[in-house]
């Protein structure tokens, strides 16, 4: 197994584990739920290794405790001139007692450009927690529209720090 393939497998395993943990509380009926792509991108950015381009077939077996992910090319997987494979590889769907997880890895010239996990959980009730099991990007958080804001919530300010607080400004403005 090449370094690149190992890396892909490692990352896929990490994805499976992360997604597996993400659905860690579900039981009951099946509810489809896609994990947040941008969130996954965050994970990828942190974990993206410098892949060494080599020419091997991108078929690997993931040695993971959570799932056996047989990565097979589902789209145009090809070895480029630089030696690295390009394409999107989707692992076998793994299931555990919480639901199922399918991990997809995208390679470009041997480098991992994206990893995404699709999770199916068995219980709707858990969805609210599932959505916050992984960090979200600041850009995905609803922005404050200061024109509408009438009050400010923050860690308790002291009487003196109130004077420089946003709440003080709103109070002065009579909002």
């Amino acid at each position, binding site marked *: 197994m090449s370094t690149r393939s190992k890396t892909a497998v490692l990352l896929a395993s990490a994805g499976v584990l992360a997604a597996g943990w993400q659905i860690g509380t579900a039981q009951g009926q099946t509810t489809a739920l896609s994990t947040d792509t941008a969130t996954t991108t965050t994970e990828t950015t942190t974990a993206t290794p410098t892949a060494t381009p080599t020419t091997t077939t991108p078929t690997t077996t993931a040695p993971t405790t959570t799932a056996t992910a047989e990565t097979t090319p589902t789209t145009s997987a090809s070895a480029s001139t630089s030696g690295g494979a390009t394409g999107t590889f989707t692992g076998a769907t793994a299931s555990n007692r919480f639901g199922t997880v399918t991990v997809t890895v995208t390679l470009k010239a041997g480098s991992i450009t994206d990893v995404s996990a699709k999770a199916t959980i068995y219980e709707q009730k858990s969805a609210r927690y599932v959505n916050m099991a992984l*960090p*979200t990007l600041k850009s995905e*958080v*609803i922005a404050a529209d200061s024109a509408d804001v009438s009050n*400010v919530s923050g860690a308790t300010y002291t009487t003196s720090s109130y004077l420089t607080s946003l709440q003080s400004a709103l109070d002065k403005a009579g*909002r």
Partner: protein
Amino acid sequence: MNHHFVSMGTVVSLSGDLPERATSAVENAFADLDERFSLYRPESEASAIARGDLPLTRASQEMRGAYELAQSWRVATEGAFTPQRPDGVLDLSGVVKAMAIERAGTVLDEFGATHWSVNAGGDVLTRSAGDAAPWVIGIVDPSDRDALLTQCRLGPDARAVATSGIAERGEHIWRIGADDTFAQVSVVAPDIITADVLATAILAGGRHCLELACRTWSIEVIAVTRSGSIFATDAFRTTRPATR
């Protein structure tokens, strides 16, 4: 209309439709609780208990009620929220401010106010008149307290938001790396006591308590770690899962 006053070491801001005399009644509600529960007043009942001069079993009904409330939350949060300081002294300030806010709300209701907000040091309870626009509450960015991280809308089903954080204690050192302990936690809940207690509990109890709280109570949460990662329930997110 807008009114603010100092109590419990912070500033309380009232806004909305505030009937005449209601504001002084709200001030009295805060003052009464502060007088009994403040550990900064040597003459308070709480200070007498802290010194060991007064056993809790002989304390006032109000004191024992607050203690019971705090203890029930300690059990419900698996110890993440506790009315005990690390040195063992009983400290009910974790519920007393929220109790004061709740009482202030009752006072405003009794005075006939139909659209109001009470903000005590960053913890907010609102009452929304049916036809009025919902209250929009900004949430401070813990990495820049002059900026807002996000906002939430409070209405009849979610009347309160409370935020707990370490910023005010001067611990706002933003480390690079995988430190996922929380620096600031905001909780939107149907009532102010649930919001306040759970914000404190999640800040203290971390990811485990966050999971517990989200599964147990009907709340929305946005929590920021010391390294700046954000964990948020749907109400705070622009992107929702494709299938629900």
